[in-house]
């Protein structure tokens, strides 16, 4: 076949340019390429993100001079001690309680959606369910909060619907509940809670659905064969297996509620939450050290939370 005598097989082709030479270099030193690939993202995250976190910690150990209002860059625990004042402890407690209530609300409302999507939705319905959860997750946060301001307003659709259906008495009874009620839904803790639940609900549904999809149908059949009622199967088989998903979701709902300062500002009483305190201290008050110390609180709470969650196996479904 070959007219020309067969050439000896080249062990390495001659380099055709700098591209080839570099490729060869990378081939001989894969670590070099890995380093070059990793350097830019590592530098960015290391400098911008970790650097900022370090600055946050640093600032939280500074204090503000009460007379001049100037930040004094000297190490002190004074700013952290301020967190333990009664009014600041109130803010922390209020935020944690709200985060817990929101997480519970998301789990209860989200479970049927996740369970239906994981178990019964097939084909096009499955895609519809998935998209139905994904779209609200990604759509504009502010627009969602704004929508609820419209809904919960005193002259808004809920009051109108209550009047139309003759349930105004129930609405008023709910609003007159001590502690969580208020003048209207948009100025009560109930309103704040509803908006939080709405905004973070998709973050709960997706991991729950992922966990529920891994529950083998055969286990449920076995449970039924052994004479368990639906309620017993739910309590003793489905719920324990879904728990890691619920915990994974709760990481998001809990953490996001801890840090939010927009929702309590727009819907709710004027009582402060951690996020709002951070925002106000760094802004109008100009007290960056105290704002930084307040921002460390959710980090600490989340670290404790994550340690517990890890023991429960929540990270396997993330």
């Amino acid at each position: 076949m070959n007219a020309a005598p067969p050439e000896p097989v080249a062990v390495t082709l001659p380099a055709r340019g700098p591209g080839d030479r570099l490729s060869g270099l990378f081939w001989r030193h894969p670590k070099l390429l890995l380093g070059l690939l990793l350097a830019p993202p590592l530098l960015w995250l290391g400098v911008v993100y970790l650097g900022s976190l370090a600055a946050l910690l640093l600032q939280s150990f500074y204090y503000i001079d009460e007379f001049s209002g100037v930040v004094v860059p000297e190490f002190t625990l004074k700013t952290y001690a301020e967190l333990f004042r009664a009014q600041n402890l109130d803010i922390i407690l209020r935020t944690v309680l709200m985060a817990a209530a929101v997480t519970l609300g998301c789990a209860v409302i989200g479970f049927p959606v996740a369970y239906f999507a994981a178990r019964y939705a097939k084909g096009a319905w499955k895609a519809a369910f998935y998209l139905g959860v994904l779209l609200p997750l990604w759509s504009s946060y502010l627009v969602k909060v704004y929508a609820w301001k419209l809904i919960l307003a005193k002259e808004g659709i809920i009051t109108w619907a209550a009047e139309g259906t003759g349930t105004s008495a129930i609405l008023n009874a709910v609003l007159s509940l001590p502690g969580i009620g208020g003048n209207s839904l948009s100025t009560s803790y109930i309103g704040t809670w509803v908006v939080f639940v709405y905004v973070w609900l998709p973050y709960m549904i997706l991991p729950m659905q992922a966990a529920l999809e891994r529950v083998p149908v055969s286990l449920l059949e076995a449970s039924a064969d052994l004479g368990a009622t639906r309620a017993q199967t739910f309590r003793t088989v489905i719920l324990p297996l879904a728990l890691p998903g619920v915990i994974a979701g709760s990481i998001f709902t809990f953490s996001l509620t801890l840090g939010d300062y927009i929702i309590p500002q727009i819907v709710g009483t004027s009582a402060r939450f951690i996020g709002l305190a951070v925002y106000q201290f760094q802004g109008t008050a100009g007290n960056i050290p105290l704002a930084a110390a307040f921002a460390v609180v959710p980090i600490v709470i989340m670290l404790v939370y994550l340690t517990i969650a890890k023991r429960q196996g929540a990270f396997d479904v993330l």
Partner: protein
Amino acid sequence: MSSETRPPVGLTVAAGLGLLFLHLPILLIFLYAFTTEERTYQFPPPGLTTKWFAVAWAREDIWPPLYLSLKVAAISTALALVLGTLAAAAMSRARFFGREQLSLLILLPIALPGIITGMSLRSAFDVMGMPFSTWTIVLGHATFCIVIVFNNAVARFRRLSGSIVEASADLGANGFQTFWHVILPNLASALLAGGMLAFALSFDEVIVTTFTAGQQSTLPIWMLNELVRPRQRPVTNVVAIVVFATTFVPILLAYYLTRGGDDTAGAGK
């Protein structure tokens, strides 16, 4: 067992109500953009009008924030595309020391509440005496956009068979040619999806931005100010529709671009 294939009625109703709860509120934004009542959120609207779209168009305080938001989102997305793809390429190539820690580091900006990222950046700018500018906003946005691109790219790298890269090398292509002619075309739709999601996320972001913007106003900050101190309420609705559409369309496109794989855009969890 019929009970295993047919869902209980109670469950169907609860799941349906849950989905309605997720979707109905947004519709009101559209309705209120047409109301004739500009001082309260009266329902039902006393009358309907389309004049607010013209009013919003003529309001000069809306355009600069819109322009700034688009600019920040474009720059942040470009940065996140480069950094996220590089990180994903490194992660998919090799197991190395600190790999788990790196994936945690990439995830952290979005896993921790936005207020921590925002307050951290604010502290850093304060420590370094850095004045607020477009770039201080971009620093924050690019940081939390990396994870979006990364998630999409890493999922695609995982599905990409290693043999096509070897085949390319066997045919005499060098690393750069292989990247340009083989890897990039295969990554393209995942990167496009990740880029669009990152753009949507940045365009809409408000929590981190309030800490990094100083006196500047992005469109979400403009909206937030209107929510706290409303002027012409229906104009806010018109802007809300614009923001909603600008984030909604990329999300839907991203979903269709990455559908059918094991991992879908934005799923990430």
